[in-house]
């Protein structure tokens, strides 16, 4: 059991870094494809009902990661709640646009593309692309591309959250971790009984 737990731990700890890198790569690609100044992924923290900067490319940089704001703030909040992607230009004209959130980042964009990050019936966050050059009119093909990038970011974010939950469990923050620890230290006979019980539970859940 100890070996198994160590192997799982090694896998979980490794992949979390990998998923973070995947998410970061996605915002880098989003920024590059649209020739934009910046791109970010916001993670929805359901417990706190807040959006959290999870990955940032370009203006604003890594110092933003971890910053939070209420989940119904401004355009990102609207996109999150309504599941509808949006593209808007000339935000600078708008004196009140997300002023609090924008000023807290030290960066007020002129244009913004935002798409909800959806996995099955869950919304995990929002992908934003800021300040693409406003030389060519926007097209529906670009809207579709934004949706596809959002889908990729959603998958990365889902994997990252799963890895975090797995790590939390391994760190003893959950009932399953405590159960695993008890099993590790139990006699062979009790281990076998415990595993039988687990299999029965698994069947029940199926």
């Amino acid at each position, binding site marked *: 059991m100890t070996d198994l737990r160590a192997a799982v731990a090694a896998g979980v700890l490794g992949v979390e870094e990998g998923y973070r890198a995947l998410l970061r790569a996605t915002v880098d690609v989003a920024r590059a494809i649209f020739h934009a100044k910046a791109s970010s992924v916001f993670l*929805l923290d*359901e417990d706190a*009902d807040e959006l959290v900067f999870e990955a940032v490319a370009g203006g604003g940089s890594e110092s933003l990661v971890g910053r939070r704001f*209420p*989940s*119904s703030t*401004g*355009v990102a*909040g*609207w996109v*999150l*709640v*309504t*599941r*509808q*992607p*949006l*593209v*808007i*230009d*000339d*935000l600078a*004209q*708008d*004196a*009140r*646009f997300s002023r609090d959130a924008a000023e807290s980042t030290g960066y007020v964009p002129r244009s913004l593309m935002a*798409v*909800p990050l*959806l996995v*099955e*019936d*869950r*919304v995990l966050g929002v992908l934003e692309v800021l300040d693409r050059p406003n030389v060519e*009119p*926007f*097209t*529906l093909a670009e*809207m*579709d591309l934004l*949706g596809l990038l*959002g*889908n990729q970011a959603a998958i990365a974010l889902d994997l990252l959250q799963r890895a975090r939950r797995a790590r939390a469990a391994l760190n003893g923050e959950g009932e399953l971790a405590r159960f695993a620890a008890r099993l590790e230290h139990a006699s062979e006979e009790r281990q076998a009984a415990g595993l039988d019980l687990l299999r029965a539970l698994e069947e029940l859940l199926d």
Partner: protein
Amino acid sequence: MSVLAHESEEELPAWSFPTSAGESSLLPSDWPDRVTREWAWGGATGAGVRVCVLDSGIELDHPLVGTVERSVAVSKDGSEITIADDTAGDLCGHGTACAGIIRSLAPECELTSVRVLGAGYTGSAPVLLAGLEWAIEQGFEIINMSLSTTKKQYVDRLHELADAAYFKRTLLIASAHNMPVESFPWRFAAVISVGSHEAPDPFVVYANPRPPVEFFARGLNVDVAWLGGATINATGNSFATPHVAGICALILGKHRDLTPFQVKSVLHLTALNVGGGA
């Protein structure tokens, strides 16, 4: 009273059509052999049609929106949902954008704002449902819903409300999703679902031969009203939806007695790809 209770108010028998009632009562008397745009909304202003914008609120006194008849906000405190008159306007800009589009097409319609944004993410679905139910109870002719939910536990209730609206002659006009996910209410047959086309004409509607998205309207690079009296350029099915809401307000302003089924038929017959461009 629940909006679902209306069915029991109908006189019995509710589900039969006696032949003695004749064959004439189903269509408005002036229904033409060929439905054209001119017949459908030529000369119409939307006067007398009550349109509800279920969204982030509507900014008061925005020059592109004009008079807003009433603004209410739906809020959630614990499990308690409250619907109250509100003066806070728009929390995002989006509802103002939708209202401005409807106003630009139907200058004399009555606009009401129901704000369902602001309760945070976790309160969003119950607040949306409560706002929709309230709007149906108020008997608006049109409810613009440039929003959707993916939460499966609310789908049945949303479905009931969409059907209740349909039978109460309230048109629900809802934004479709251009992403590969299941979301609602736009997928329901009782609503009019809208995606975007690329043409710049606000009156051009295309009928989709491959639903669930039924119609496409202008949703690309639209100049829309935004916060602070501003105008911005915006793209999304969110902005195609109020174009259809505005056109429906014109149709209903001119032909008061049409049912949602008939309005949908008029939209279909006047769609550019169905031959109704005249």
